[in-house]
C-alpha cells in the first residue's frame, strides 16, 4: 500500500472551552478526491485548516505525505517548527476558500505570480509562462490584466484555484468553494475542479454539492459535532446512509 497523502489519527482541537474536533481519524490516498460533508459548525473548516497548520491541533497526529504538520519529531518528543519551516510545508498544500480571498490590489496575473516569485524565488519569465498556462486551463486567459473586483464570483474562484496551483502543490484543500456563488456560476468552478481531479490531483473538498461528490469523489465522510459519523464510497453513503444523523442531514440537503 502506498503512503497516504493525509493521515489524521485521533485529532482533537478546541477553541477555548469549545471542543470542535473530537478525535478525527481519516486517511486520504494520493491522486484521490476526498469529500467532507456535514452540517454547519460540525468542524469541517477547522479540520481543513489544521491540515495546513492554519490551526494547531491539541492532541493526536496529523501528517501530510508522511511528515507531521507543524512539528518535528526528535527522540520521541515533538518540537514546534519554526515559522520558516511551517511556511515551507504549506507551499506544497494549496487552499481555496469559500470567500475567494484574492488579493484585490493585484491583477489576476499578479495574484497567480505572487507566491512563486516571492516565496519560491522563481524567475519571472518562468512563472509568467506557467501562470499563463494555468489561466488558460481555468478559462481566464482574457482576464489576466483585470483586477479581481472586475470579475464575477465564478471567475474569481477560478483565479483562486490557478493561484494555488501556481505553487505546484501535491495536495489541494477546498473549503466550500462554490457556497458563495450564484447558482448559475457553480458549474464553471466545479468543471475546473473536475478536470483537476482527472489530472490526478489529490483533493480534499468540503462541499454541499452532492452531485459533485457522487460523480467525482473517491471517498466521502460525513462529519457532525466534531466526529466522523460515517464514511465510505460517496455513492453508497449518499444513496444508502447507515446512520440516523446522516439520513437526517441528507434529507435536508438533497
Amino acid at each position: 500500500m502506498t503512503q497516504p497523502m493525509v493521515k489524521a489519527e485521533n485529532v482533537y482541537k478546541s477553541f477555548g472551552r469549545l471542543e470542535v474536533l473530537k478525535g478525527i481519524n481519516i486517511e486520504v490516498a494520493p491522486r484521490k478526491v476526498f469529500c467532507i460533508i456535514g452540517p454547519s459548525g460540525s468542524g469541517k473548516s477547522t479540520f481543513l485548516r489544521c491540515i495546513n497548520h492554519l490551526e494547531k491541533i491539541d492532541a493526536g497526529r496529523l501528517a501530510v505525505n508522511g511528515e507531521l504538520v507543524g512539528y518535528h519529531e526528535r527522540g520521541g518528543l515533538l518540537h514546534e517548527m519554526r515559522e520558516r519551516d511551517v511556511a515551507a510545508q504549506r507551499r506544497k498544500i494549496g487552499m481555496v476558500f469559500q470567500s475567494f480571498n484574492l488579493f484585490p490590489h493585484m491583477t489576476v496575473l499578479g495574484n497567480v505570480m505572487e507566491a512563486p516569485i516571492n516565496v519560491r524565488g522563481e524567475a519571472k519569465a518562468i512563472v509568467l509562462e506557467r501562470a499563463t498556462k494555468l489561466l488558460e486551463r481555468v478559462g481566464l486567459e482574457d482576464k489576466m490584466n483585470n483586477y479581481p473586483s472586475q470579475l464575477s464570483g465564478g471567475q474569481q474562484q477560478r483565479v483562486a484555484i490557478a493561484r494555488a496551483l501556481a505553487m505546484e502543490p501535491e495536495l489541494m484543500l477546498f473549503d466550500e468553494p462554490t457556497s458563495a456563488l450564484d447558482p448559475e456560476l457553480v458549474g464553471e468552478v466545479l468543471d475546473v475542479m473536475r478536470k483537476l481531479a482527472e489530472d490526478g490531483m489529490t483533493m480534499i473538498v468540503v462541499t454541499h454539492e452532492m452531485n459533485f461528490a457522487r460523480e467525482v469523489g473517491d471517498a466521502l465522510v460525513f462529519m457532525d459535532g466534531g466526529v466522523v459519523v460515517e464514511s465510505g464510497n460517496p455513492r453508497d453513503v449518499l444513496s444508502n446512509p447507515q446512520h440516523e444523523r446522516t439520513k437526517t442531514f441528507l434529507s435536508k440537503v438533497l
Partner: protein
Amino acid sequence: MSSNSTQGRPEAIRAVPVRHPGRWVAAGVIAILAIMAVHAVITNTRFHWAEQAKYAFDASVIAGVKTTLMLTFFSMLIGVVLGIILAIMRLSSNPLVSGAAWLYIWIFRGTPVLVQLLVWASLGALFPTLGLGIPFGHLFFSARTFDLIPGLAAALLGLGLNEAAYMSEIVRAGILSVDEGQSEAATALGMTKMLTLRRIVLPQAMRVIVPPTGNETISMLKTTSLVAYVPYYELLFKVQNIYTRTYQVMPMLIMASLWYLAMTSILMTGQYYIERHFARGSLRTLPPTPVQRFRTRFLGISG
C-alpha cells in the same frame, strides 16, 4: 425584448436639463462678497504689499522655506517608519512588545509637542554628557550632550518621535482594516508573516493610511514653526527676524502664511495622486485626474 425591438435602437434622449435658479443666486452673492474682500485687501495700504513682495523671495526667507520643507520631510519620514514599527509591535502577541509600544504612544501622544521639542533641546541640562557603556561599569564612549544633539537633531527628534506616536495609530487602524482572509490566503500560500505584511496587508492598508497621513504631513508643515523655539532656523524664525528689524509684523506674518498655504497646496495635490494610486483594484474605475476632468468637462473629450 418585445415587439418594438424590430424598430431598431431609439434616438438618444435629449432632455432639457433641470434649472437651478437657487444656485445662480448663491453664486452671484458669493462672487460679490469675494470681489469686496479682494478689493478691501488690495487697497488697504496697511497690508504693505510692496513690503511683502520685497521680502517674499529674500534669501533668508527662501532658506527658511527650504528648512521648513526639509524638517517636514525628515520628521514625517521618522514618524512613518517608526510608526509602522510601533504599529506592528502593538499588534504583536508578545505582551512585553505590545506593552512597550503602548507606553511609547502613551508618553509621546500625551505630552505637548512643544514641551518635547524643548526637552530635546535642553536635554543637556538633565544629562550633561551622553555615553555608551555597561551600566555602573566601564564607559566606552561619552560626549557632551549639546554636541551630540544640536538644534537640527533636537528639532527632528522632537517632531519625528512625536509624529511616530500618531502615525502608529493610523497604521494600526489601516492594518486592522484589511480583511483577515487576506493574510490567511497569503499564509496558506507559504508566505511568512513579514512577507505577508509587506506584500499583502500594508499595500491594502495604504488606502486607509494615506488620507490621514496627508493630513499629518500638512499639519507637520505648520508644526515645524514650533522649532523656532528650539531654536532652529525655519521659515517662521526667519520671518520673525525680519519683522523685529522692520516692525512690519502683520505683513510679514501674512507673507509667511502665504508661503505655508503654497506649500500645503502642493502637498494636497500630491496626496490626491497617491490616494488614486492606492485605490487600484478596489474601485472598478479610477476617478479621473483633475487634468482628465478638465478635458471632459470643458473640452468635451473623454478618455
